[in-house]
């Protein structure tokens, strides 16, 4: 069954809205992360659905609460950015003997689904509030923040899982395999750019404008892998626990130059669940509450066949202004930043929009910042979770780690005091982001 999404009025998508009405009224407590895998091996117990159930049970246990207390769920149903099965494709044999099935067979396989979860988790018997946060976990998080602040749910699960099937993710799949092109792809897609090329194109424009180079990305990408390898839940820690070097990065296979293989995040299977509640109820949760101080949204305006540097800079600047306005803090208050990094080559657009660690610079400074100490031990921790690049493609490691950092229990805990953090995804002009605080102010 289709569940509603947040009305547009819930999204804070313009300036002048003032302090967010929900500021300090919503907190995150428990966090649950499933094991990771590179691809699905078609066993029911390793499916997207199974991983989602694991993540939810772990989050409830982590919060130290009873499943009875969960009265809401916000879920991102999409569970890939690649080419995948039709929702009505039959499930592999045996799946329906392990899990109860809903009205489309790919639920729990290539689609997240609230009804499927509730059917297969009988312990969640008091869920009344059900909403989807489409496309990105960022939307599920901002939707759940609004829902709790509006009193629509008191203890809410926020959930997103990812699947990755056998075979190539985009190449030669679907429309790309044809010798004709219909739909919007015909205006740009026929030139054959892979997914990362749009970002690479704007990164190249950025380098040309500000006198920077792809080599200057190396310290950031290497540091992200280091941070990711501290995370016991990350894909690389679990399956490829080898550090990368600057030389590895510089000799990486090109995908769309200047984007190489290390600038692309690795598709994986994984699921995350987080518990949102009120500060009052959080008093009996086992984990320290982390406050949501604001959230904001940007969407493309007038975009042509491909976005431009000017659009990405304007949109991420607006995101910075909206976030700070509603949270009542400024860039100097941030203890760290965890904006999205999959692709690595657009991280700096987010970072500069926030003016993170700026010494008065507005634009064109992030790659210089990457040459300074951006480690978790230093004064300006950049992407302390390691993000997608350091942990695999989920678009949520950075959100998760904002909660863990501010609770003081991140596996890659920053050395400076963690008081305020920011996380958001995904594109610089298509982004949903949150400001998190260790306290309500």
């Amino acid at each position, binding site marked *: 069954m289709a569940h509603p999404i947040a009305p547009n009025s819930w999204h804070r998508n313009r300036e002048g809205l003032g302090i967010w009405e929900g500021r300090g009224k919503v907190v995150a407590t428990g966090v649950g992360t499933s094991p990771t895998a590179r691809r699905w091996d078609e066993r029911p117990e390793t499916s997207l659905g199974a991983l989602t159930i694991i993540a939810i049970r772990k989050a409830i246990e982590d919060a130290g609460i009873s499943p009875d207390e969960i009265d809401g769920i916000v879920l991102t149903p999409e569970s890939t950015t690649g080419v995948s099965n039709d929702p009505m494709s039959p499930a592999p044999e045996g799946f329906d003997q392990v899990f109860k099935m809903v009205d489309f067979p790919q639920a729990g396989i290539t689609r997240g689904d609230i009804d499927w979860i509730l059917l297969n988790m009988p312990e969640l018997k008091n869920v009344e509030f059900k909403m989807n946060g489409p496309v990105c976990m960022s939307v599920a998080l901002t939707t759940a923040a609004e829902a709790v602040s509006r009193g629509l749910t008191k203890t809410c699960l926020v959930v997103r899982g990812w699947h990755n099937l056998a075979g190539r993710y985009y190449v030669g799949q679907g429309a790309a395999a044809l010798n*004709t092109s219909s739909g919007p792809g015909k205006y740009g897609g*026929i030139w*054959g750019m892979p997914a990362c090329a749009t970002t690479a194109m704007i990164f*190249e424009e950025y380098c040309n404008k500000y006198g920077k180079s792809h080599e200057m990305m190396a310290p950031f990408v290497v540091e992200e892998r280091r941070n990711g390898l501290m995370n016991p839940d990350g894909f690389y820690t679990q399956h490829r626990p080898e550090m990368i070097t600057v030389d590895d990065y510089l000799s990486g296979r*090109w995908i769309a130059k200047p*984007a190489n293989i290390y600038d692309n995040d690795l598709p994986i299977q994984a699921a995350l669940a987080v518990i949102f509640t009120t500060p009052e109820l959080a008093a009996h949760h086992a984990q320290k509450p982390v406050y949501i101080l604001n959230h904001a949204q940007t969407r493309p305006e*007038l975009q042509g066949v491909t976005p431009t540097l000017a659009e990405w800079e304007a949109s991420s600047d607006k995101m910075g202004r909206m976030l700070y306005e509603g949270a009542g803090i400024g860039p100097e208050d941030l203890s760290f930043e965890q904006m999205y990094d999959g692709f690595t080559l657009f991280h700096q657009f987010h970072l500069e929009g926030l003016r993170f660690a700026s010494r008065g610079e507005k634009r064109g400074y992030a790659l210089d910042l990457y040459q300074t100490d951006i480690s978790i031990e230093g004064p300006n921790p950049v992407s302390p979770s390691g993000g997608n690049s350091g942990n695999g493609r989920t678009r949520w490691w950075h959100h998760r780690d904002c909660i863990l950092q501010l609770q003081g229990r991140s596996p890659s805990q920053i050395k400076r005091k963690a008081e305020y953090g920011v996380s958001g995804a995904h594109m610089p002009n298509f982004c949903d982001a949150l400001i998190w605080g260790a306290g309500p102010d």
Partner: protein
Amino acid sequence: MPKQSPVPTELDQPFYDACNEDRLVVQHCGPCNRFQFPPRMMCARCGNPGLTWRQVSGRGRIKSRVVVYDSPVSTLVPEQPFNVATIALDEEPDVIMLSHLPGVPVDQVPIGAAVEVIFETTPATGQKVPEWRLAGS
């Protein structure tokens, strides 16, 4: 380059018909005095549905560039690596088109250089599409 052949629709038939006559036309909004591409049912800025197709000079500048080594499009895989550039039209620098810049060696795309439109026949249906070459080349 063996591009996929675009299949025209009612909305963009004038654009593709003009391509087949070696003319570049772009949707124009009179009230905004603004061009837009890709084609839409109405002006993306003001909502005006009364857009006209205007022929443009076919001149532009190279805005940025990449070199594709791993294309998702099957017909182009044998051509790898190949250039893709963004072209900003002289009449409306916000209007961007893509180009393989035929004749320009990989890694040698000059950002900022002037380019002019040519029309390339796509193999599957013979439909022509805009392409670009360095001005005067």
